[in-house]
């Protein structure tokens, strides 16, 4: 009897679980409406809208897509904080997601088979997008000659800038136009320290970063990023070098150490949890260094609201440099588990080419979520802002399809768009553009090396570790962690790539 009871119970729970999964799998090709169904999972930096508000936007988009491509779309906005893990869990659980984006994890998505090979689909249903994005950039989203993603069209080239308090610069008569490199910054910081001993001149951008990681304009991180560089290319030389043994790296660390010793930078920068915006708002800091993709004036204007009431300005202190990972950082992909790859591709194509679809996705419904000004720019309705309108994904601009087809927000200079497009085209480009490193065979080494880097890099970049003694220890610890295997692996794959692409 007891055994029967337990058996029944087991059966019941099993059935429940199966039903649970089955329920979510619904909504494939054959739907009541007769249109192909596609689920579009995008990451939003704004509030997640309520079900009804989302439905109205969805319906407005569907009115366009039913006519144009015979597809109905389900929107699935996911908060930035857990976007990637939610998408991967959803795909594991068999939940329906047809289109999703990479957020710096393009390679992981490809190597774990999350993505659909879209090489042929792109020719058939996305030729406009293909032309728009260009062969070069698509290569950055390819592996073994197969295309797996489409990079989002946005100002990609990031230029390192110093964001500073304009009132103080004027008060001290600082000539900011003469500041053209990170080395030039030292003098400015010193002058500020002298005149305002109560202030800390330089604030960190976030934990462990005072800007040293963004001021490289000839380094290709080869699929890793500047938060955790491993083997890199420097300049036009096609030899993979150990970043941390280079004299350039040592120089930057020594500069940081100098700032640290002279009290020019926040002492706790390597461990602080304060962000640049908080520091600037507090009024105790003069500047911070970060990389942005908009012109100086626009950058300052867009950051002003976060940085408190003191007027801020921006000055470029380096050049932009494009490599594969800049291009594929945010790229759109079709899930390998999709039942409707054609429909997904058709819709993806619209997000790059149809201004109405893009603006609906970003701004929502005209009149309710935004108003269109006479000059073609967009504002929130009277008395509303990003947090009160029923739907907006405004902060996701530049991650959804084509940024250049969006309505500009009020106050943006139309010239800026031109500048941004130009930057994208003329920025210095790595000779290894299009190469991606497949780290699958080096997972063990990656885990160990990543841990070592986290242990040392922040301290060295923020000056709290002495480069004279610590860099050597750092390099030795990396060696123990299997660093050389990664360097060799990168070189081998790069050579192979070169042989195939020359």
């Amino acid at each position, binding site marked *: *009897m*007891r055994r029967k*009871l*337990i058996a029944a*119970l*087991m059966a019941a*729970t099993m059935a429940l*679980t199966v039903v649970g999964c089955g329920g979510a799998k619904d909504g494939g090709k054959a739907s009541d409406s007769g249109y192909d169904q596609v689920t579009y999972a995008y990451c939003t930096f704004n509030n997640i809208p309520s079900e009804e508000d989302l439905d109205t936007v969805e319906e407005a988009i569907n009115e366009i897509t039913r006519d144009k491509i015979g597809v109905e779309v389900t929107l699935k906005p996911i908060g930035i904080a857990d976007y*990637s*893990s939610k998408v*991967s869990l959803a*795909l*594991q659980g068999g939940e329906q997601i047809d289109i999703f984006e990479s957020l710096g*994890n393009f390679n*992981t998505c490809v190597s*774990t*088979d*999350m993505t659909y090979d879209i090489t042929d689909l792109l020719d058939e249903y996305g030729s406009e997008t293909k032309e728009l994005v260009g062969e070069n950039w698509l290569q950055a989203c390819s592996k073994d000659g197969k295309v797996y993603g489409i990079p989002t069209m946005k100002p990609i080239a990031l230029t390192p800038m110093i964001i500073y308090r304009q009132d103080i610069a004027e008060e001290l008569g600082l000539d900011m136009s003469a500041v053209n490199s990170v080395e030039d910054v030292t003098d400015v910081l010193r002058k500020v320290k002298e005149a305002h001993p109560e202030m800390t001149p330089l604030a960190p951008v976030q*934990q*462990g970063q005072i800007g040293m990681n963004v001021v490289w304009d000839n380094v290709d991180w080869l699929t890793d990023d500047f938060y*955790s560089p491993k083997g890199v290319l420097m300049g036009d030389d096609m030899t993979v070098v150990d970043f941390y043994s280079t004299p350039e790296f040592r120089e930057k660390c020594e500069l940081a150490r100098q700032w640290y010793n002279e009290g020019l930078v*926040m*002492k*706790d920068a*390597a*461990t*602080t*949890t304060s962000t640049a915006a908080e520091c600037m708002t507090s009024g105790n800091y003069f500047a911070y260094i970060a990389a942005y993709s908009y012109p100086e004036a626009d950058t300052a204007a867009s950051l002003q609201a976060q940085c408190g009431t003191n007027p801020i300005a921006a000055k470029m202190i380096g050049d932009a440099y494009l490599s594969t990972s800049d291009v594929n950082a945010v790229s759109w992909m079709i899930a*390998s*588990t999709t039942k409707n790859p054609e429909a997904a591709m058709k819709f993806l194509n619209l997000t790059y080419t149809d201004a109405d679809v893009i603006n609906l996705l970003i701004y929502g419904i005209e009149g309710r979520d935004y108003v269109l000004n006479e000059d073609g720019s967009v504002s929130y309705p009277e008395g509303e802002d990003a947090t009160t309108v029923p739907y907006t994904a405004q902060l996701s601009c530049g991650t959804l399809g084509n940024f250049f087809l969006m309505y500009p927000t009020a106050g943006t200079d139309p010239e800026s768009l031109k500048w941004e497009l130009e930057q994208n085209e003329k920025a210095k480009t790595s000779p290894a553009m299009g190469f991606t490193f497949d*780290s699958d065979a080096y*997972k*063990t080494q*990656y*885990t*160990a090396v*990543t*841990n*070592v880097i*986290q*242990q*040392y*890099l*922040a*301290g060295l970049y923020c000056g*709290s*570790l002495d480069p004279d003694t610590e860099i050597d220890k750092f390099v030795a*610890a990396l060696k*123990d*962690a*299997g660093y050389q295997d990664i360097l060799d692996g990168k070189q081998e794959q790069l050579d192979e790539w070169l042989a195939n692409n020359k």
Partner: protein
Amino acid sequence: MTKTEHAVARSAAKEKKAWKDLPLLLIALPGIAYLIINNYIPMMGIFLAFKDFSFFRGIFGSEWCGLENFRFLFQTKDAWIMTRNTILYNVAFIIIGTVLSILVAVFICELGERKRVKWFQGAMLLPNMLSWVVIGYIAYAFLNSETGFINNTILGRLGLDPISWYAKEGAWPLILLIVYIWKNIGYQSIVYTAAISGIDKSIFEAAAVDGATKLKQIIKVTLPMLKPTIITLTLMSIGRIFFSDFGLFYQVPQNSGAIYATTQTIDTYVYRGLMELNDVGMSAAAGLYQSLVGFVLVMIANTIVRKIDSDNALF
């Protein structure tokens, strides 16, 4: 009676007993369901530890990869450091935590008056309700090198130089121990308080009549009576000796790289390493490894307890 008649009678008796047990089983039903759904069904995930996971093929379709996923746990020098830290911290927590929470429980029971007992218990329990993130910031308020309380107020008054705590690895075993005790002691002492309240008062009275002082009563009566509770709780913590409290080791040191040598544990290592790789197989391997070692340790500890004092063993 023949053999079959015997069997029939016996199974009828069994049937009757089962019917009698039914209400009890029904009471247990939600618990059993919870156990199955929460603890047994996810065990399927154990396969992941031995698979080269592919989203397209799913858990069962992915290729086997042997022990490849476990390699990262053992291959580097860090492996030794993180294992050592995890075990030493847990041993310290078990020993010092148990001693102190028994002490607190004894004191609380000696307070006598109900109102006072409740007040003290509530006050000691409060830190347990705070999340590690909040506690991390409280610690930060003390330890921050520019504006922190210790550097600014205490060391300053004593005429000592400020210390950058988040770069001083030697200080962290003590800091983490204090923070852990502060957060958990109230909660841990509850069980002991309850056990002490359960002791028959007449035993204490008898001891008092025999001339035992308060201290003697605690040593000769309270502690022996607490022994089963202590053993059970300690055995349970030994089972988790390979797991560390992630919040304590990640949030409180503010993820500061300079002090990894004394704050890195298996859980934080796995978290840091796999955040970038996002590899399900390797995470599953780490979890399996920790559980297995924990299981073995509990079995060993239990065997030892059974050898010494079989009444108090868990099973």
